[in-house]
């Protein structure tokens, strides 16, 4: 805890200073609220408007978590398949990269035309943005298994399956978690973008409604909610990572 305070006070100070600067600027220059609201105005709306946006928030969280779970499963499965069957890597790797070059903003309305306004098109979008970082980092982790350890397992007579589960998979876990952390934040963005294009509720809907009625304070509330959500998601993955790859940090102090 002490360490968190020691390391965290500098960035916190910078953020507080930034808010003070913003607040005093909007007071000093008397900027109208519909143009740029001051932090206190955003804060007040954030508290007072809870009943207005809380169902939007739940809907987005549900969408994000579902999308993230599907996306990361797809990413992990793709990585394993492409690693275990080298011909697949050869065949599909370019396709996987192409999939990331499709502009989401163009794809999303098409998906709505094809699949309607339900969950499916939104989940497809989130999966599409989520799976890529996970697939690539997991694949790298699997491929970069130490040659020394690989030589030992071969000499010890391990089968392909044993080599994978005992050596390659645990070796890839730290890389997998880097991918998960990137995807966790992407999935929130993916959810919001997909909501923009047609949904009954969600932060994306709340945001479009607010901006079309010049409720700029609400737009800012939405922005902060998205940031907060990404941050929480990221922290959650980091927490799980610390438990799963405990060997990385355990006992480092005793070693000097």
């Amino acid at each position: 805890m002490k360490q968190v305070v020691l390391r965290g006070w500098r960035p916190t100070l910078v953020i507080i200073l930034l808010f003070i600067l913003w607040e005093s600027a909007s007071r000093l220059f008397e900027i109208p609220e519909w143009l740029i609201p001051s932090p206190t105005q955003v804060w007040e709306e954030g508290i007072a408007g809870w009943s207005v946006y809380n169902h939007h928030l739940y809907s987005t969280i549900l969408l994000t978590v579902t999308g993230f779970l599907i996306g990361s499963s797809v990413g992990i499965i793709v990585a394993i398949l492409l690693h275990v069957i080298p011909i697949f890597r050869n065949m599909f790797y370019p396709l996987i990269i192409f999939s990331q070059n499709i502009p989401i903003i163009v794809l999303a309305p098409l998906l709505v035309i094809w699949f309607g306004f339900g969950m499916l098109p939104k989940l497809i979008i989130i999966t599409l943005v989520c799976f890529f970082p996970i697939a690539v980092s997991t694949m790298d982790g699997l491929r970069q298994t130490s040659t020394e350890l690989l030589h030992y397992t071969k000499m010890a007579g391990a089968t392909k399956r044993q080599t994978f589960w005992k050596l390659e998979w645990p070796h890839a876990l730290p890389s997998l978690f880097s991918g998960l952390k990137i995807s966790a934040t992407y999935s929130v963005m993916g959810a919001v973008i997909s909501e923009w294009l047609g949904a009954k509720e969600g932060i994306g809907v709340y945001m479009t409604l607010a901006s079309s009625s010049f409720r700029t304070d609400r737009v800012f509330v939405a922005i902060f909610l998205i940031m907060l959500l990404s941050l929480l998601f990221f922290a959650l993955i980091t927490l799980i990572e610390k438990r799963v790859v405990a060997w990385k940090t355990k006992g480092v102090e005793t070693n000097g």
Partner: protein
Amino acid sequence: MAELTLQNVSKSFDNQLILNDINLSVGNEEFVSVLGPSGSGKSTLFNLIGGLYQPDQGEITLDGDTITGTRGSISYMPQSPSLFPWRTIVDNVMLGSEIVGEPDREAAMNMLKKAGLSGYENAYPHQLSGGMKQRAAFVRSLLSPQPLICLDEPFSALDEFTRLEMQKWLLDLWSEHKRSVLFVTHNIEEALFLSDRVIVLSERPATVQKEFEVPFDRPREETLLLSEEMLSWKREIYQVLKRGDGSGASRG
């Protein structure tokens, strides 16, 4: 029981002959060292015995069964400890028996205690010193079910003091848990101190140049290293290695 024989084994890579007509054997519970200059194909020899490659010609048998090109019939200890960083020491030493056969945690704990690693059972490899990691790696090969252990220059990366300590430790543990051992090294003294028999390989392409029967009694003491007898043996093997033609006076 474990008797390893290599008959007329040859292997080349990219048309370059690495091993040329190797004949050697390891008897039951015998400690045999293979001594050769660096790059003489000692690792290739192990990879062949371990079944990673097929020899171009020749046959490898263990207790009469052909094991040419079959993996998992020997227990192996590499040059680097090669412990898995995400496994605790006790989980690491059970790895060999996990891959072939049944892991036995009880036996692993006991062996770690005998090996002087008690208190470190649940530590991770990065918390151990170099010598301790090598001990764990040797315990892992002892706990593997195969009757023959192949050690590939296990102490070459250690400093002089740790190496001597490890050699004595290895002899102690081995005399209690007898196995057939094939030990590869480029250190003459180490080969003489540890083994019953020393096989000298020539430079590339490697052939068996000479075999020496080591006459020292067991258990062996550290003082042996400085004895006159040791020095004269060292000189003789050194000359064979240097001349590279195997025409030295035989004493084996």
